[in-house]
């Protein structure tokens, strides 16, 4: 289990996973994102500044959250990935659909 902080400000949920988003933690993230979106917040920023590692299942959890958020009429954005995490987005070409944002506050500006 890893720590995943969730806060909501002006209708935007900020989800902060701490540590490694591997196969075990990915299930946790998927449930957290589902809970946020089912709870009525359809705009979500996943702040990856504290995420030291991301694997394909963590990526799957982000894509699952992205699809749920869009189905609910909102969106999911990612912000501040570390270089290790960014390289996973690049190697899987997911940076096209989940474009990393420079900061959390402006993640929904454009």
């Amino acid at each position, binding site marked *: 289990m890893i720590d995943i902080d969730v806060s909501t400000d002006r209708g935007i949920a900020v989800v902060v996973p701490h540590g490694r988003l591997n196969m075990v933690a990915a299930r946790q993230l998927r449930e957290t994102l589902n809970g946020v979106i089912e709870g009525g917040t359809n705009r979500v920023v996943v702040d990856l500044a504290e995420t030291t*590692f991301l694997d*394909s*299942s963590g990526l799957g959890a982000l*894509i699952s959250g992205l699809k749920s958020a869009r189905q609910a009429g909102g969106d999911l954005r990612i912000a501040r990935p570390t270089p290790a995490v960014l390289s996973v987005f690049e190697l899987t070409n*997911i940076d096209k659909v989940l474009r990393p944002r420079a900061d959390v506050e402006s993640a929904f500006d454009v």
Partner: protein
Amino acid sequence: MSERSHQGDEADGARVLLLDLAAEPSALDDAHDALDQAWEEHPEVGDAERLRFVMAAMEILGNVVEHAYAADEEPRRRRLTLEVRRVDDGLLGTISDNGQPAALDLSDVTMPGEDAESGRGLALALAALDELGYERVEGRNVWTLRCAPRG
């Protein structure tokens, strides 16, 4: 440890790590911790190399833990090993398990579409490594991961 990998026997170079773990999800964090520790003892391994190696090793370990064992296999029997060696041109990893043969053809592995929620593991491992091999050796699955410095 009684069971050793063939690749390990052939390879020159210094052993960086050898682990024998229960093949269950906790093996991912245990192996990751051990690798982090090993890098501290081997500063000669470059950042980019270890990043790519760890990325691939975690995908293969995840695959073993998720798919190698029949549902009725006794948990106590499920074991995997991870060996990492420093070789001239980079890192050589060997992951082996006593599970069922993996039904796959690595030459068929492609990156799934962007909205897929799974199926990227092996494609990511292939992209991160310079060489990924799989073979069945004496009743074990043996994965070989080779990672050379780039650029």
